[in-house]
């Protein structure tokens, strides 16, 4: 009855590229670095929800952290939570919401660990007011492969603090962190969704709602002509009227099989987008909703990435600075629309001015676009290369956590500080992303 001896494979959320590594779960902080053989290349990974290869290491050892899931302390007066770095945002919400506290920053999925959220310095629908996740992490501990413990904060070891936030997990193992939660009086979100056509209308809506806590737009990357760049702009705020804090039991659906490649043809995507756009009849709609569907609509279907079939999917996310105006974004959208590879999930959002403490952090003020593509041999890669080129031309940058094919030249142009920052990388740590974009070990 011994389980099969097949070599374990760890996949990122995009399921591309397919790489092999030994997977070693960490159960206690002291499991690292004591149990690691000298000379082994390693990388600590959480839930593997980044899309490309920042959480992969070909022929190395992946130390998985989700068993480092213990809470350490919580101050119910200030909302400061200290926990081990493998605790997921879902676990924090389960703990904090009934006590009247909420995450300071929520990405599109709650199934990510605190360590992963720091390493990729994630952002959410409130970036324009709250900045990145790292801005809400007053302290954390970094464990280096030589056993050194480095407690990091803006005042203690500030250079390590800055190198590790957004440091793609390469500076060592994040073992615990402090997270500043924000108070809420209800699970409910007061939202408003507005249809728009064109980037100018999107920007006008963004400006008009700049004071709202959450704002994001879904954009149709298939429609052409007079419907070009149509979408739905969603904004929301925590309801200030006291309401329910305890969760409603909900079943979770799991996509049990990989869908065949043809399931995502441009016809089905086009039809979905048209339906989605017209689902909302009125130009403007307002209401109250639970925070779960507002923040994590896709978490309702666990493993939705299987929709893209065995080959997986490619994500693209870039930010273009304000200086490039809407011209760069128009060119990106035109290239995507013309390629007919557009996806269901294209998201447009304005990044605010809050500066992350992270040296390698992705967000800069401007407009960010995120969407995914099926892996279709050369076509998808050609398109992504073209999008990277437009991004570079307009002085923007791409997001490593969502990338599987950025060229070394582009990475080094997007993050000119990379070489200086690399001094903070733990000598035992690496990732396939890092090897790909720098050619280093």
């Amino acid at each position, binding site marked *: *009855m*011994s*389980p099969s*001896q097949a070599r374990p494979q760890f996949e990122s959320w995009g399921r591309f590229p397919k790489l092999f590594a030994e997977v070693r779960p960490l*159960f206690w902080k*002291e499991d690292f670095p004591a149990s690691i053989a000298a000379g082994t290349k390693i990388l600590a990974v959480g839930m593997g929800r980044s899309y490309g290869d920042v959480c992969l290491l070909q022929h190395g050892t992946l130390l998985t952290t989700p068993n480092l899931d*213990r809470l*350490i302390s919580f101050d119910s007066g200030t909302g400061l939570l200290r926990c081990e770095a493998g605790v997921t945002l879902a676990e924090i919400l389960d703990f904090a919401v009934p006590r009247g506290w909420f995450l300071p920053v929520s990405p599109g999925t709650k199934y990510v660990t605190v360590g992963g959220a720091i390493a990729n310095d994630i952002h959410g629908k409130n970036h324009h007011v709250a900045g990145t996740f790292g801005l809400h992490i007053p302290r954390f501990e970094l464990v280096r492969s030589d056993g050194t413990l480095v407690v990091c904060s803006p005042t203690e070891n500030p250079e390590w603090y800055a190198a590790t936030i957004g440091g793609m997990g390469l500076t060592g193992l994040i073992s615990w962190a402090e997270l500043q939660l924000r108070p809420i009086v209800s699970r409910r979100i007061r939202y408003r969704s507005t249809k728009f056509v064109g980037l100018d209308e999107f920007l006008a809506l963004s400006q008009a709602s700049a004071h709202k806590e959450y704002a994001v737009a879904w954009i149709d990357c298939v429609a052409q002509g007079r419907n070009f760049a149509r979408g739905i702009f969603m904004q929301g705020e925590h309801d200030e009227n006291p309401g329910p804090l305890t969760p409603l039991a909900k079943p979770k659906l799991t996509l049990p099989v990989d869908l065949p490649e043809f399931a995502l043809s441009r016809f089905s995507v086009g039809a979905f987008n048209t339906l989605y756009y017209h689902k909302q009849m009125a130009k403007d709609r307002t209401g109250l909703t639970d925070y779960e569907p507002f923040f994590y609509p896709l978490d309702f279907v666990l493993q939705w990435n299987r929709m893209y079939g065995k080959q997986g999917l490619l994500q693209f996310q870039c930010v273009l600075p304000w200086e490039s105006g809407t011209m760069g974004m128009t060119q990106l959208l035109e290239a995507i629309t013309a390629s007919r590879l557009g996806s269901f999930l294209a998201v447009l959002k304005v990044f605010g001015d809050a500066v992350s403490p992270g040296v390698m952090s992705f967000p800069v003020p401007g407009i960010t676009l995120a969407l995914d593509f099926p892996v279709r041999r050369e076509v998808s890669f050609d398109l992504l290369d073209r999008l990277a080129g437009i991004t570079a031309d307009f002085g923007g940058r791409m997001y490593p956590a969502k990338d599987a094919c950025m060229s070394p030249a582009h990475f080094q142009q997007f993050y000119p500080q990379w070489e200086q920052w690399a001094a903070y990388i733990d000598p035992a740590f690496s990732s396939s992303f890092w090897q790909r974009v720098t050619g280093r070990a």
Partner: protein
Amino acid sequence: MPDRDPLFPSRVLVLGATSSIAIATLRRLAAPNRHFMLVARNGDRLTAVAQDLLTRGALAVDTWIMDLDDTTAHPEMLASAAERLGRIDLALIAHGVLGDQHAAEADFEVAAAILHTNFISAVSLLTWLGNYFQAQRGGTLAVISSVAGDRGRKSNYVYGASKGALNVFLEGLRNRIDRDGVHVLTIKPGFVATPMTAHVPHNALFASPDQIAQGILKAIHRRRDVAYLPWFWFWIMLLVRSIPNRFFKKMNM
């Protein structure tokens, strides 16, 4: 009956409190009415578990650092637990080792050490606790055994024998003290993703510690005698037990 109370068990003793299944069970129990006494060998780990439970809202957490192999120290620790908790509603015995089967085949001392940890030390705890619960006329004694105790297999029969012996002991103890209102629960998990199994690749039969914890709490509330966890192991082991030895001895499992 206090056992049907949704707040039951409010005073909980856990032996081997840093095992993954114990942690998952404790976490599900962490609530403002609960007082825990946790026993384990590693002080740092024990502190981490205690902090986690207190942060999640447990009323109080007492800890006791000891190696449960040291059976002579059991009575002192158990008496202290009974005193600190005031009464014991639930005692969960969760410590154990998988051991090295190959080493145990070659060296009796290795085999004896596995039997000591998994069986003899549990017998020592159960003797004291069985009498305590009998005098208390109530409470639940939940013991983590294994499906491996249902049949001896060449890949882990020393471990299997320790758990098989434990199953028989618990069956007899239940027969003796059930009539005094004491609930004796034999928990038989299948494959669980814990440090004990971290060295083998995980297949679809593997359950998470939290799934097992959920099953343990359900079995406690339903006063089950034996719980296979997850449930499908009952059917798998029914099949495995039904294979005649003349075939079984030729199989590779």
